[in-house]
């Protein structure tokens, strides 16, 4: 038995309560005194920082106790119905503690950044209220001890995502983006629910402890049931973590404030899908088909999104597609059975992607300020309006280069180790006989090359070359406020050092997570590649990353860029990439419009108006009127008729009495 009881782990619920209390206070302030910025900032940042402190305490407890079994802290009995027993319980184990630290830590930095970024926004208190609520729900998601509790968090972060994407809801586009995110997520959530039903009906429980203990005995490895469960769970991941075909909400989600994009759509919410697969690793390990699907979808998404990122002009859209692509890599990792590698990339990606988004946020903030001074109306997010900003924003430029090198996979930064480990796992699995994973590996390598290329492109167009912002604006370009810049520095430091979490052969994180992944590892066949092969693979990955950056500097000419008004129209394949393969248009034509037609014509006119209104409501009224008419005919006033009925009734009663 673990020795976590009675220690800091018992207070784990504080980590959720503190941000939630922050939400309540900030929410009240949003109604009462929206202008009290200082109080809102203190409550907003303080509650999440306090949650981080709780996380550190719990982490130290787990570090000291080395538990073999997860520790479940039950708070109250939630659903005791028949055979179903679900408690409001939180689970403290190695995986949830890692997620707890990442979520609260990165959240704290982003909250600090938001103090500067959202300073002039009238909805300041509302923003922090929503952000705190998001952190609370995200923690429910990662700390939950059963699928339903996790699902509460799952839905809750979806809600907060909707609220925050549509934060500036007065603009219809932004409100629509929030709605799109919520609706597309709902499709995935359906899969999650079906998976839960299957799990309960076959395994009799929804608690993680019970499910993962019973699954190997109750279900046939590689059988249809466990494959179905895993695939439906993955369907939820496809929605929440923006994989093909449900990724379409994430680029639109860039309509929200940039810190929101950094927190929710880079570091935390979208990684919930990866966490789900890692948590349910035994189920995925028992179904090679589902794992292959996960890895395949991840690889395809990684490549597909990277290609789109090559041609986007909006700086946030590039980063959005980059996120989709990197999430694909995480799924390659967990699909190939390297759950620790997937989580490792999740952590490093949280660092450098948050850094990239916050850096982009700084850039956008500065651009907006410049345009504000000159009353210009150009798009502050279009890279064609930027250029040469390194001269004006040195710190931002430096930290973003750190992040770019990390995401491109240049050693010794964190991204190199995590991406390499994922690709190595795929390669090893391919070597062991499952040829499909070799294809995954190749696709991953191509994607890595493209990643390096488009990230370098982003840096070149934004920070280097001549400045295209305009002469009047240039006077106002300067570094972002220090409150916005120092979180970037912290994240940059984490990006540099983060690789130490799971260095090859030392594999700290892998060993840390071993109590949770050991059973799955036993089910897999991997060949440890020879030491020489490993070094070759690492070198190959590094070369690909460097090559991508080099090619970008060679091929792309920032000097030749024109501002959007004067830019030539795109043609051919470039146009297709810019229009993101017109996927949204395809969805609209194939799915959305037929659905609306169906709803309007069949369901509204057909079912609602004709069947329910006419036949149902009016029909039953007519029926009642008919019966009433018949009844009224009985009231003829003819005593003779009454007598007849009277006598017939008496005869009938007599007959009944005779029985």
């Amino acid at each position, binding site marked *: 038995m673990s020795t976590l009881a009675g220690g800091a782990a018992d207070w784990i619920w504080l980590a959720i309560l503190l941000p939630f209390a922050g939400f309540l206070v900030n929410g009240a302030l949003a109604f009462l005194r929206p202008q009290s910025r200082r109080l809102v900032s203190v409550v907003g940042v303080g509650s999440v920082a306090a949650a981080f402190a709780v996380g550190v305490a719990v982490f130290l407890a787990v570090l000291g106790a080395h538990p073999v079994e997860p520790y479940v802290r039950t708070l109250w009995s939630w659903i005791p119905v028949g055979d179903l027993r679900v408690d409001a319980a939180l689970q403290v184990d190695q995986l949830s503690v890692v997620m707890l630290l990442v979520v609260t830590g990165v959240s704290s930095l982003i909250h600090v950044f938001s103090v500067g970024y959202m300073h002039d926004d009238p909805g300041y208190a509302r923003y922090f209220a929503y952000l705190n609520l998001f952190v609370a729900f995200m923690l429910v998601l990662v700390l939950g001890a059963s699928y339903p509790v996790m699902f509460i968090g799952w839905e809750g972060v979806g809600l907060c995502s909707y609220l925050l994407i549509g934060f500036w809801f007065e603009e219809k586009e932004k409100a629509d983006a929030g709605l799109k995110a919520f609706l597309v997520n709902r499709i995935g959530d359906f899969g999650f629910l079906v998976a839960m039903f299957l799990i309960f009906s076959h395994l009799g429980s929804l608690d993680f402890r019970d499910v993962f203990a019973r699954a190997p005995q109750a279900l046939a490895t590689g059988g249809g049931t466990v494959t179905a469960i895993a695939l439906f769970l993955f369907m939820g991941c496809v929605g929440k973590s923006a994989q093909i075909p449900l990724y379409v909400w994430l680029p639109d989600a860039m309509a929200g404030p940039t810190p929101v994009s950094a927190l929710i759509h880079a570091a935390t919410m979208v990684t919930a899908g990866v966490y789900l697969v890692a948590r349910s690793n035994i189920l995925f390990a028992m179904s090679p088909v589902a794992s292959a699907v996960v890895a395949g979808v991840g690889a395809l998404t990684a490549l597909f999104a990277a290609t789109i990122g090559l041609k986007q002009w909006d700086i946030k859209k590039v980063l959005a597609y980059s996120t989709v692509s990197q999430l694909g890599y995480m799924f390659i990792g967990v699909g190939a059975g390297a759950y620790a590698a997937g989580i490792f990339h999740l952590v490093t990606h949280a660092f450098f992607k948050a850094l990239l988004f916050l850096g982009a946020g700084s850039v956008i903030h500065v651009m907006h300020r410049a345009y504000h001074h000159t009353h210009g109306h150009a798009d502050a997010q279009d890279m064609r309006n930027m250029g040469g900003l390194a001269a004006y924003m040195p710190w931002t430029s430096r930290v973003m280069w750190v992040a770019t090198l990390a995401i491109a996979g240049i050693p010794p930064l964190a991204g190199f180790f995590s991406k390499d480990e994922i690709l190595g796992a795929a390669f090893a699995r391919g070597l062991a006989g499952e040829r499909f994973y070799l294809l995954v590996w190749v696709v991953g390598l191509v994607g890595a090359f493209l990643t390096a290329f488009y990230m370098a492109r982003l840096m070149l167009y934004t920070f280097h070359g001549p400045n295209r912002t305009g002469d009047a604006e240039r006077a106002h370009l300067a570094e972002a406020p220090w409150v916005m810049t120092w979180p970037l520095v912290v994240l940059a430091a984490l990006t540099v050092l983060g690789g130490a979490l799971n260095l090859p052969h030392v594999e700290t994180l892998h060993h840390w997570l071993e109590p949770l992944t050991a059973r799955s590892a036993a089910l897999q066949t991997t060949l440890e590649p020879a030491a020489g092969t490993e070094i070759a693979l690492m070198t190959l990955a590094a070369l690909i990353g460097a090559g991508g950056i080099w090619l970008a500097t060679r091929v792309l000419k920032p000097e030749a860029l024109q501002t959007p008004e004067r830019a030539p129209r795109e043609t051919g394949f470039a146009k297709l990439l810019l229009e993101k393969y017109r996927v949204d248009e395809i969805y609209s034509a194939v799915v959305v419009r037929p659905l609306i037609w169906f709803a309007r014509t069949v369901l509204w006119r057909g079912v609602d108006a004709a069947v329910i209104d006419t036949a149902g409501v009016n029909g039953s009224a007519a029926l009642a009127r008919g019966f009433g008419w018949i009844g009224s005919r009985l*009231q*003829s*006033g003819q*005593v003779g008729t009454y007598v007849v009925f009277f*006598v017939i009734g008496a005869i009938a009663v007599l007959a009944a009495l005779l029985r």
Partner: protein
Amino acid sequence: MLLGPSLAVSAILFSLGVVGVLLRRNAIVIFMCIELMLNAVNLTFVALSQQLGLDGQVFVFFVMTIAAAEAAVGLAIVIAVYRHRDTVNLQNINLLRG
């Protein structure tokens, strides 16, 4: 010994009375059929009193009294109705119509 046949006759007379009530439209004739029914019941009482004691005959006595009172009042009502509607045909007496 006469009990069985008496009860049979009584049953037939009672049914005839019911048929008459259902068959006729004239209020007074319906009344007469009701009197027929009462007499059938009287016959039952008397027949059973042969077996069970003289209480049956006492009962018949009361029934006759009540029938007399009822006939008086009922015919007074018929007269009153005739004065208002100029008919005793039940079809035309339909002020109770709902």
